[in-house]
């Protein structure tokens, strides 16, 4: 798989994951690894800058939460702006896939 293509899609991938509920950094890394069958690992150097940019765009927000063992985690949660952006991009993506499918998909 083209890793550059995946890297460019990181903000949408993150918004999509966060639309399922708040997550912390390592949880996101593990979820991506699990869902791609281990073929794509999100590195910290790509994940955190992407999360911080999404936060600067007010598409997500973050908060620290102390765990029962005393350790802290920074959780990220999607905001209304992020949901609207994700929905719009999902519609565009569907249109794009349908169009390409018309050329490269099986012909009936």
């Amino acid at each position, binding site marked *: 798989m083209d890793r550059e293509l995946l890297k*460019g899609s990181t903000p949408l991938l993150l918004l999509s994951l966060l639309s399922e509920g708040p997550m912390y950094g*390592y949880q996101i890394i593990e979820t991506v690894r699990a869902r791609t069958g281990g073929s794509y690992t999100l590195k910290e150097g790509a994940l*955190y800058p992407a999360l911080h*940019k*999404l936060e600067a765009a007010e598409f997500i927000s973050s908060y620290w939460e102390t765990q029962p063992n005393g350790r802290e985690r920074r959780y990220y949660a999607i905001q209304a702006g992020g949901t*609207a*952006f994700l929905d719009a991009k999902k519609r565009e993506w569907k249109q794009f896939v349908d169009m390409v499918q018309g050329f490269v998909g099986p012909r009936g």
Partner: protein
Amino acid sequence: MMAAYLSEVERGLASLPRRRRRELIRELEASLLDEAESAGLVSEEAMAAVLDGKESPAEIARELVAAEADTSRHRRQTKLLAGGAVGLATGGYLLILGMLLNRPWRFSLSFGLAMGLAVGVGIFWSRSRWQRFNPLTRYLLAMGLGTLLAIPLGFVLGKFFLWTWLSYGTFAGYLVERFQSKRRVLAWVEDNILFTAILFALSTIWFKSWFLEWSDWQFVLRAMLFNFVIQVGVWGGLHLHRMLDGHWLLKPNRA
């Protein structure tokens, strides 16, 4: 082992403000501890194996610093442009109205600048700090800050301080929160009528001329039209903001 790794990352973040640097390190440390904990790692050797699989401290620091610089540049530009949309709408409307009513253009320019730069940029800039709060708190903070930022508006006439104009800042703050979700057309009308009524009530207290203003339907219509211009300005500013954000987020990383 991990402390040495983090301290090397922190050295690479030297160009960032101390508070931000500490926050980034704290987050990275939490992530590494989560990974170690989930893998059941307790020994130094095992931790060393985890860190071996990571990017080098210099590399991770470079990515973080590049993103911070890019974010800071983008934030400055978008807030200024979004605030500019508010100022352009209100100043532009007043300019046209001023030409029709033979009023000086300096008034439109001062009003547009104060409304755009102080109120618009100020609210757009600060909003990220309270967006996680509950809706009521968000509204109160946005309206409160909008009111304070509108202080320059009160001096625009230059003769005396017109405190009723602070309410334009309150209205802009309210609208920034209001437009975060999709709005029905009717809600625009409701907001406009409500705000116009509040403004007239405030003016009544200030000028003690209730009958004169409400009976002048042209004056009422002009006030409603101006409030509509503020609504369009804030709505446009927010949309411009989101469009630029989306474009920025999806553009290939030049770092």
